[in-house]
């Protein structure tokens, strides 16, 4: 039997708790924190169960991402325990990127120091805006001041790899009111920025308010303009866009973990609603803390559903995810994986989009132009 050349892979841990639900967010979390303790135990059990099951020689892990929810509802000891359990269960590289998402309303200097000591190497702070009015609209539990403090404390705690999250495209927002957020973001010299266009996800409280007419969403054209403004502004400030919503000061400062989602790299997810992907399989856990706890308690994997991607589905995903990034689709890798010629399959269409200035292609890569990024979904739907 041919031995496996171990492949890099990622680990994701979903912390399903929040102090309060933000009205725009559709990630899974609950606000009943009384399950915290039971959850941590179940989470560690899930990792151990998986460790006994998966082929250790096949993968090594160079990222661990603790997301949510609000991971920072847990203190450093809990987070430390999670990281330790993961390191015991899986072959994680010593210099792996270990990220934690934090909400500025839940951190103290001590907590952040504790995270650093526990082995967290990268911190991602959910700032969303530096303007009180916006924070209120977004239903955030923290103030702009608290966000500033969180960044300072994180730096003092020893983190030099700091990422900040922002949301733009809010009702009434203009270039004039958005740029100050970007300016303040850049002033705090983070390594990484994520700027998301506000999306009204179906079923969220904000979407219901929108349908009721409680506010007037910013027009599509304005949002498109703000997108261009964002990319322009950040690129001038030294933050290069590498995905639709993600910007980094340098290559190594890109989110190593998140890039896995777009590059067909395997990942294992733990916790309720977490997704795992080991080509060609994807499976995901129940979107319910109770179901999760009861499954783990009974010694069962808490898997809600599993899909095995057909070749055609894999191609669709490769195109859609590849085009999200500025590096684009790696054509050699594509041709090798699917045993076809990308140019033969899609050349006619990509030429057409190239003429319209939406795509740029060469021998090795096919990527959207900056304008093209605004039409990603249409372009992909035309291709696949």
């Amino acid at each position, binding site marked *: 039997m041919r031995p496996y050349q171990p492949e890099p892979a990622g680990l*994701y841990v979903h912390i399903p708790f929040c102090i309060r639900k933000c009205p725009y967010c559709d*990630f899974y979390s609950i606000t009943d924190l009384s399950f915290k303790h039971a959850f941590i135990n179940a989470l560690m059990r899930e990792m151990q169960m998986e460790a006994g099951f998966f082929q250790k020689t096949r993968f090594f892990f160079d990222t661990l991402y603790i997301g949510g929810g609000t991971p920072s509802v847990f203190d450093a000891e809990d987070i430390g325990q999670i990281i330790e359990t993961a390191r015991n269960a899986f072959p994680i590289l010593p210099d792996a990127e270990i990220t934690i998402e934090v909400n500025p309303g839940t951190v103290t200097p001590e907590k952040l120091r504790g995270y650093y000591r526990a082995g967290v190497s990268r911190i991602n702070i959910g700032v969303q805006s530096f303007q009180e009015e916006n924070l209120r609209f977004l239903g955030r539990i923290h103030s702009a001041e608290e966000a500033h403090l969180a960044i300072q404390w994180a730096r003092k705690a020893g983190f030099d790899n700091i990422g900040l999250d922002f949301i733009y495209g809010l009702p009434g927002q203009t270039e004039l009111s958005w740029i100050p957020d970007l300016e303040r973001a850049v002033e705090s010299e983070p390594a990484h920025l994520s700027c*998301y*266009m*506000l*999306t009204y996800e179906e079923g969220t409280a904000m979407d219901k308010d929108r349908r009721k007419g409680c506010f007037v969403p910013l*027009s*599509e*054209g304005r*949002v*498109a303009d703000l*997108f261009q403004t964002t990319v322009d502004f950040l690129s001038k400030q030294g933050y290069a866009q590498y995905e*639709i*919503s993600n910007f980094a000061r340098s290559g190594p400062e890109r989110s190593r973990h*998140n890039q896995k*989602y*777009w590059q067909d790299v395997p*990942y294992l*997810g733990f916790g309720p*609603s*977490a*997704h*795992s*992907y080991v080509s060609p399989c*994807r499976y*995901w856990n129940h979107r319910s803390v109770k179901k999760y706890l009861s499954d783990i308690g009974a010694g069962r994997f808490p898997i809600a559903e599993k*899909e095995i991607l057909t070749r055609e*589905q894999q191609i*669709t*995903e490769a195109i*859609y*995810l590849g085009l*999200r990034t500025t590096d684009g689709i790696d054509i050699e890798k594509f041709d090798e994986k699917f045993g076809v010629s990308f140019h033969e399959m899609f050349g006619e269409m990509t030429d057409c989009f190239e003429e*319209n200035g*939406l795509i740029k292609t060469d021998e090795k890569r096919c990527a959207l132009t900056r304008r093209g*990024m*605004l*039409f*990603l*979904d*249409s372009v*992909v*739907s035309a291709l*696949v």
Partner: protein
Amino acid sequence: MENIRNFSIIAHIDHGKSTLSDRLIQTTDIVSDRDFQDQILDSMDIERERGITIKSQTVCLPYTAKDGQTYFLNLIDTPGHVDFSYEVSRALASCEGALLLVDASQGVEAQTLANLYLALEHDLEIIPVINKIDLPSADIERVKNQIEDDLGLDPETAILVSAKEGTGIEDVLEGVVTHLPPPVGDTEAPLKALIFDSHYDPFRGTVVHFRVYQGKIKAGDSICFMSNNATYKVEEVGIFQIVRVPQKTLSAGQVGYMIAGIKTVSDTRCGDTITLKKQKCDTPMPGFMETKPVVFSSIYPVASDGYEDLVTALEKLKLNDASLIYEKDTSAALGFGFRCGFLGLLHLEVVQERLEREYDLSLILTAPSVQYEIVLNDGSLLIIDNPALYPDPTMISLTKEPFIRAAIIIPDHYMGAVMKLCLDRRGINRNYQYLTNNRLEMIFELPLAEVVYDFYDKLKSVTQGYGSFDYEIIDYRETDLVKLDILINGERVDALSQLVHRDRSVERARHACEKLREEIPRQMFKIAIQGAIGGKIIARKTVSPFRKDVTAKCYGGDISRKRKLLEKQRKGKKRMKMVGKIMIPQSAFLSVLKTDKD
């Protein structure tokens, strides 16, 4: 012959004809209850779902009456829609009597009257049957009054039934035996038989349904169709008892079938007379007509590789539907397809549904058109039903369009609404009369083109379902016709062109543009939709472009969801047509034909 009764059930749509037929069949035990399926004579899915009969079927019911004798009751089913009135008339010609079915709560309606007139034309003995007497809203006395006043029949002869509950069914069977006359005819005379229907059997070819008036027919006979002198050798004759039951001979008075190696249903003509090749009868049965289509539309497959499938499907459908005609057609926008002729809009819808359902095809239909007579400047006459063939307007001296005489029966408080509807549709009110103290029969002359558009839906809507309608084509009249083109980003989409009256053109153009605007998905560029007559733009709408179409966030949990969305879109694309650079969904082509739901 004394023990045979041939009868039909005539009724307005929905008055319970199929249910009554089912009960009669059940009572006479020719099918076991286990095999029984509601609306047994309606064998097509569409018929059962819509509750209408399209293809009529016949059944021979053995019945032992109270006098102790066994009778053979031939129930000749008739299609229940105005599109098929010729077929109805042929079925009635094969009977001595008819059950006139009236809904106990709805009462007499336009089709009830029209069907009664048809039956009386054939000198049929009529037994009124009041159905649905179990309904709380049943008003038997009122219906009896209508039977007397509107129909001129003796209300005391009316049989009360609830086909649904099975009450009164024996009375119906006894009534058929005692009130309807047996057939008469000389069994020794040369064969004379009337074809009233035919259907296609994939193993045996065409099965011809007929009534023998005189003489006999048996396997081995060489027969001849009198309309075209085509001759065939009879392989089998028999009667229908849900399944075909072969018989040695069929003779005068009997109703049954014949299999004679006839390849397609089109080789037989409803209303034609069958006789023996060697010993012909002197005259054919009266009333034979070639059915002519009155509504025309082109059918295209949505998928460009669907043409071969469409050819096969139409060929198969045609085997069973002699009134469907088609010929090749091409469209710059839609590629290869067929120009089809139908007996009416319902017929068109039925064909469309069968093609889509039974043959799994995705289709685009063009706006239904009637046949116009166009006199050119040089005096020559052109008959046009396809906008694509409409001549240069400067060459036209005169255009004529078909008019119908429509009989509409309504409760009188809808008079204003119906009057407005008909006048809006260029109708002329010829007459109205009260049938009873609050039921009104209105007679209009209307252009057929206005009726095929959406008239029936509109009539139903303005009368809240109480209006009933029947029509016949009367003549051709001069008209002011224009060809309305639809342009998408300046490109004429030939499949969307329609022939319309000048006075209605702006309204139709706006309607078409608006519907297309609703149905054409936004794209990365602006899409202009225009309605034009010649070079003149008379309506315009715009589909604004996307300014952005991008999902902001896509991590582990979002990927499957996004992919499924893309897969759904891809399925949707299979139902779209590229016109220039623009994807036009099938639904957009169809929406142009649909009326606003107001």
